[in-house]
């Protein structure tokens, strides 16, 4: 220790040796060498995800949603893009009867669809459910993409509960039950 010019001991000695960091770094490296192969061995690069499809059981209805300004909401895949059909109440939502305005909004692409849904979400933030009706020619890849798009948009969460409307398949399509209760999500 370098002595004080006046002969007094220094309060903060400035010539102390810095602590050796190598043992700590070596232990971290050893831990990583153990951890990384263990993660590689016990995991897989194919991460799968499950999309719950809102489907009622045979002869059952989906639970009703809380009453709100938007009574029904359905997105249908059409040739020109997506057709959003929303039943919007123009009177007090607590009234048992009132004017229901059927709004039809055409979205040519997914960003336009998300913009329409965001405006409806702003009108009724409590609503969580939406009915999606793909076209018969739609593929599973497209359906999943649309489900992702209607669940969350650039401005945040939209409608996390997506009810897939049963496919219209041939002459026996009448046998397919409606996935939503009457007046709930049906157009």
């Amino acid at each position, binding site marked *: 220790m370098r002595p004080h010019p006046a002969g007094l001991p220094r309060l903060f000695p400035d010539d102390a040796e810095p602590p050796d960091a190598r043992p700590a770094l070596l232990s971290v490296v050893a831990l990583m060498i153990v951890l990384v192969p263990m993660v590689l061995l016990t995991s897989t690069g194919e991460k799968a995800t499950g*999309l719950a499809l809102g489907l009622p059981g045979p002869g059952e209805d989906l639970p009703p949603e809380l009453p709100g300004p938007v009574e029904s909401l359905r997105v249908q895949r059409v040739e020109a893009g997506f057709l959003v059909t929303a039943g919007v109440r123009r009177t007090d939502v607590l009234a048992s009867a009132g004017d229901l305005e059927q709004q039809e909004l055409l979205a040519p692409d997914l960003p336009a669809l998300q913009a329409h849904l965001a405006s409806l979400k702003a009108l009724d933030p409590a609503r969580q459910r939406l009915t999606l009706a793909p076209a018969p020619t739609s593929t*599973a890849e497209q*359906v999943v993409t649309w489900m992702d798009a209607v669940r969350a948009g650039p401005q945040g969460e939209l409608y996390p509960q997506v009810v*897939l409307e049963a496919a219209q*398949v*041939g002459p026996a399509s009448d046998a397919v039950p409606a996935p939503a209760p009457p007046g709930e999500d049906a157009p």
Partner: protein
Amino acid sequence: MSRLFPQEPPAPGLAVAALAPMVDLFTILLVVLIRTWSTDPPMDLAEADTALPLSRSEAPVGTGVIVDIGPSGLYVDGARAGSVAYHQSSDEVLVAEVHSALLARGGRRVVVRAHADTPWTLLGKVMFTAQQAGYEEVELVAASAASL
């Protein structure tokens, strides 16, 4: 003659300057692995050329009776239960073989693993069949966009 690059004996011990980037690299690698990899067992798809649709969702896959819709066939828990080409063009909404197989297994949840190019008509038929077999929950499996 003097050497252009004189060889000096290396300093004994480990160089801290070499260890620090190694720790950084391992840390980044570990975070990437934990973020993108899954601890679920690898999926054993019924047909090897099945490509699952891609989704941004990251919800885990539930357990239940597995229905595979491959490029050429339908499978229930790995056992073949029909042809895709036939049921795709058929007018019948109910897939009888899948229905009987689901009834035999019983349960509450069906996990559908469909090929990305599966038409919605066939996917809807399988979903409808699962409903008619008494299954309350139907889940569609997709590949997470977060995977490597």
